[in-house]
């Protein structure tokens, strides 16, 4: 809570405070609340092929989207890919986070800066970096060629490339979430386990891992949500051939101009969002 209950000697005109808050309240309502509500309302409209709207409230669009096998596959792919990316992120980020947690002083600061700095770069820049690595004649291909191996696999402009790229791009979020959750990790608990006869891997499995569960859950939620709503990376690394929820929303909104469908898909993302949040809260309560 940023606002404490203590009194402030500056208490006084509510009118003054209202004036100070007016601009941001207006912007929040007009620029955020209204558009989101409006969008959800749009999902209950239906559009013709021309993009013109047929007036009136209808469940048709929702029905069409949910029963359409194309969209079902789209949703399944999106959810599946996001789950895979989340798991990969967890596995790859955990060692880094643990290492950071156990470091101190200058080294820790430098490492932290290195982890956070990619976040300051545009998604386009980071995605392009992956194209450069995964493309034919990119880093991987050339490295393997030097070793005498021809890489038969296409690693870019397909799902593989999207998964690899998105996994790495979301790693900083997972690392930071894990680090935040590592607050409960006490070296002494691990030492106690060791003195009680536990070997290092057992210590990890029975002490470190359970204690870091809050961070794991938070990071997983964060990565899943970011993955499923990710647009830039799938669009670029997918070469326009990979269709996920976010890219579909873009296509429907900008290319096909079928806003009701785009709105419905947005509603679906929010619904998946909600489910993930509920799962997170339940798991957090039960396991922690």
């Amino acid at each position, binding site marked *: *809570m*940023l*606002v404490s209950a203590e*009194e*402030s*000697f*500056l*208490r*006084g005109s509510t009118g003054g405070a*209202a004036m*100070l808050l007016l601009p*941001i309240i207006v*912007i*929040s309502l007009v*620029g*955020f609340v*209204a*558009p*989101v509500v409006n*969008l959800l309302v749009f999902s209950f409209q239906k559009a013709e092929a021309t993009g013109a709207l047929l007036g009136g409230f209808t469940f048709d669009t929702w029905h069409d989207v949910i029963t359409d096998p194309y969209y079902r596959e789209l949703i399944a792919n999106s959810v599946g890919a996001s789950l895979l990316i989340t798991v990969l992120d967890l596995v*790859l*980020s955990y*060692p*880094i986070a643990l*290492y950071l*947690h*156990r*470091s*101190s002083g200058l080294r820790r600061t430098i*490492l932290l800066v*290195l982890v956070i700095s*990619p976040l*300051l*770069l545009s*998604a386009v*820049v980071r*995605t*392009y*970096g992956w194209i*450069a*690595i995964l*493309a034919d*004649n*990119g*880093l991987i291909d*050339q490295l393997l060629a030097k070793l005498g191996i021809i890489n038969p696999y296409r690693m870019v402009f397909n799902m593989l490339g999207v998964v690899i790229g998105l996994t*790495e791009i979301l*790693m900083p979020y997972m690392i930071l979430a894990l680090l935040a959750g590592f607050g409960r990790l006490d*070296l002494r608990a691990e030492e106690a386990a060791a003195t009680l006869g536990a070997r290092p891997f057992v210590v990890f499995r029975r002490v470190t891992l359970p204690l870091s569960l809050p961070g794991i859950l938070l990071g997983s939620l964060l990565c899943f*949500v970011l993955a*499923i709503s990710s*647009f830039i990376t799938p*669009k*670029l690394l997918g070469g*326009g051939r990979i269709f996920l929820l*976010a890219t579909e929303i*873009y296509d429907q*909104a900008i290319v096909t101009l079928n806003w009701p469908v785009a709105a419905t898909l947005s509603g679906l*993302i929010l619904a998946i*969002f909600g489910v993930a949040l509920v799962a997170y809260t339940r798991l957090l309560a039960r396991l922690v």
Partner: protein
Amino acid sequence: MTDEKPPSRGLTVLAMLLFLFLLAPVLVVVPLSFSGDAYLSFPPSSWSFHWYKQILAEPKIVSAFGTSLLLACSTMTISVAVGLPAAYALVRLKVRGANLLMSLFTAPLLLPSIVLAIAILVIFASLGMLGTFKGLLAGHVIVTLPYAVRILSTALAGLPIACEEAAATLGASPTVVFYRVTLPLMLPGLVATAALAFLVSFDEVVLSLFLSGPRLSTLPVEMFHYVETRTDPLIAALSCILVVATLVIVLVVDRTAGLARTFAR
């Protein structure tokens, strides 16, 4: 809590390898920008500054750069101008329902960017604001304002109120307290907020993609379209410039905020 025991050998090696993976894209883009090849190839077969010069030959990119710059500066100014009074009202004036209001103001951060983008697209379309500077500006402010009000509130809340109380006992009215005491002490937070708003706006791509038009575009949007169709190292050169510029901004902020913090202690 500082751990006395340093990380184990095994963990160190593993972590370092994974760090390499984490930083791979950035590490690749830098050398690639100096490629002399006409197409994407890594490692490059030859080296040159060619692609850096080529940037200036792309009129769309140059003009988009100017737009992004102007946009980021304007967004930064407006976010701070709107966020600062709000933070003050919430933290110092303790309005009722302050926590609820804060949740409202930071809600845009929780929404997936694609959903926010299309929501704003739909409304701006009916207002005729698509492809306009003011539309882009409004969109950017909506996106950066949550950061601004959040960081400024944290900075303000972290300021012990004793100095402001002392100023009041010495005869300073609330306005004077704000300008002579609160604001100077908040300087590090202000600078950090402005820098973040600038960077977030400058790098903003999804919403900008929806809101830009044929005649008005931002740098990230132009870069996106460029990568969609071509993958030559021009983008690498451009990315390098952006990376360096971001670094410079962060360092400058650290210096100013750091300097101000020495004053404050």
